[in-house]
């Protein structure tokens, strides 16, 4: 029996949801607002909400100083490439773990996740030396590989969870109809797991887009993505908040728009399997 929901309860829940939503959105809102202030207005005490002269000066300065399109393109290639490569590797891995599990599958899954607990800086030198050895420093290809490996445990885990939701009987029926492994994965499993795969792709694209340790430490003049673009506007000596906010707004805008349009899939994907 469904519980009766009173109007009062509805109002309270809605207000609470709005309050939490606004709280989470506030830093982004403040960044966008600050990007339209002068440096002096940006640090004004008390903070200025609307009563200031809006200016586009910071955007002009940032465009003059940095080649935004180059950083953006690098971000798209690196985030897109690492996500695609990750999916190609993770789909067969998740398939075997979900449908032909061995005695150690659970241990392997946990071990994979445990690699995420190692602080990135702990392997900075080994990875840097490998990059030097294989001439991968400051290349997009090198970053695609590294980001793919970093996000792989999450991709495998997410896909594993989605695949577990699919009744194994359907796959067996396909096998009885003569489907081989390739057909089973490509024509039966994948179409059924599309929402899960889509949200995995989206989430990993966002993770790769925002990754700011390896993308800063393994790049120089060529392969730097938007994280390197933002990092060039912070300064310990001198006022920079307005320019930094403009750079941040330009960096998060594409992913914000992408997230906005695909939030339905994203939410569905993230809550998939949470309620049965």
């Amino acid at each position, binding site marked *: 029996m469904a519980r009766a929901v009173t109007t009062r309860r509805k109002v309270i829940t809605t207000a609470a949801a709005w309050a939490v939503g606004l709280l989470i959105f506030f830093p982004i809102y403040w960044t966008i607002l600050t990007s339209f202030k002068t440096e002096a207005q940006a640090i004004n005490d008390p903070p200025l909400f609307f009563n200031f002269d809006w200016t586009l000066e910071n955007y002009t300065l940032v465009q003059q100083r940095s080649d935004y399109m180059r950083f953006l393109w690098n971000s798209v290639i690196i985030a897109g490439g690492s996500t695609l490569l990750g999916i190609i590797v993770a789909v067969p891995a998740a398939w075997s773990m979900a449908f032909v599990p061995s005695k150690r599958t659970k241990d392997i899954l946990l071990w994979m996740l445990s690699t995420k607990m190692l602080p990135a800086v702990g392997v900075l030198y080994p990875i840097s030396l490998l990059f030097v050895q294989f001439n991968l420093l400051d290349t997009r290809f090198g970053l695609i590989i590294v980001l793919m490996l970093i996000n792989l445990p999450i991709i495998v885990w997410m896909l594993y969870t989605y695949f577990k939701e699919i009744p194994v009987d359907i796959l067996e029926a396909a096998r009885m109809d003569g489907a081989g492994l390739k057909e089973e994965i490509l024509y039966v499993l994948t179409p059924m797991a599309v929402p899960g795969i889509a949200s995995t792709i989206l989430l990993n694209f966002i993770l790769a887009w925002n990754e700011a340790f390896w993308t*800063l430490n393994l790049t120089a003049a060529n392969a730097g993505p938007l994280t390197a673009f933002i990092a060039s506007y*912070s300064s310990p*000596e001198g006022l920079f908040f307005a320019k930094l906010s403009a750079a941040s707004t330009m960096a998060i805008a594409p992913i914000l728009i992408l997230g906005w349009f695909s939030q339905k899939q994203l939410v569905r994907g993230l809550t998939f399997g949470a309620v049965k």
Partner: protein
Amino acid sequence: MHLKNALCAGTALALVSATAAYAENLVIATVNNGDMIRMQGYTDDFTAKTGHTVEWVTLEENVLRQRVTTDITTKGGAFDIMTIGMYETPIWGANGWLVPLDDLSAEYDVDDILPAMRSGLSHDGTLYAAPFYGESSMVMYRTDLMEAAGLEMPDAPTWQFIREAAAAMDDPANDINGICLRGKAGWGEGGAFITVTANSFGARWFDEDWNAQFDQPEWKEALEFYVSLMNDYGPEGYATNGFNENLSLFQQGKCGMWIDATVAASFVTNPNDSTVADSVGFALAPNAEGVDKRSNWLWAWALAVPAGTQKADAAKEFIEWATSKEYIELVAENEGWANVPPGARTSLYETPEYQEVAFAQKTLDSINAANPQDPTVKPVPYVGIQFVAIPEFAGIATEVSQEFSAVYAGQQSIDEALEKAQAITNDAMEAAGYR
């Protein structure tokens, strides 16, 4: 005729290939500060003079430090020129990681570099990085508030006078703090400030045998003075204030005094950003009465050539251009003398136009009053004023400054913090094999 054409074509081809081989593309890692960003705008002048092109990688100071350190230690070769500071230069020079700058041209006039800067960027008398801009620290104060308080700032004040002036200018009702100082954790933030303050009370980080000295009375005296001064007349939450937070407070007229980097002088006197631009005075950083060392530091952002680069000659050409007298004149001509990179060359301070800049003389006096080879009253085994030029220092000092910041935030006592600092430092030095 054919032969003549062939010869002409051959000569042209040879010339083109010679030029192509000579013209290099330099990748430069640099820090995001006003002077460096300005230099990026003048890169065309360098390209026009030499044919070499330049690509900039601009990073925030801490990110830059980590990035270039990784690159030089793994021989990554991602950069042809690195912007490094006075802390790294002698250490990296000693390790053979940098190309010595011992063959700069006669026109460059290496002897014109301010002696304090040259000495801080050398190892065993060899220059390893050329200063692009240098700074010390000094007192910046509100002349109007000082006058209203009936006091006169001496050229070289003592800490006791600073306390007296802070008390006189402190006006909580009008949101004015007597004094604003750094308290933020981090070796280059609050750590640097408390180290120079301790120097001016006669303290030191290590004795001649690399034993930590936090158990000595001078450190306690310095910390007690700082904490009491800031608790009485400093802004609320000073434990998390660094350069930028204090700059913001001072520019908004909320500080009577601020003791910090000389480079701040151009910010607080800039009417576009500062509400108190026309009422700022300058004085040397203070010392405790009877102590022969002032609390001013010495720092330079300098350009160095990593030993792994294949383009050392072109890189040196760039360094000569960027740190030359001609570059200073180029900036002065286009943007005025107040905007030239300060603190690197003696000749700048002999230029009549520059002498008219309000803070020029005090900046020079502050730089000259700093000697990284002899930073403390008692003898020490290290070089450096606000830092100790050993690789382990950044890690140790960051931890120690976190303990001090916890005192400023009221989370522990001075005695507890000093005891922890002593243990942290001695343990780290023992592990590193100094003791």
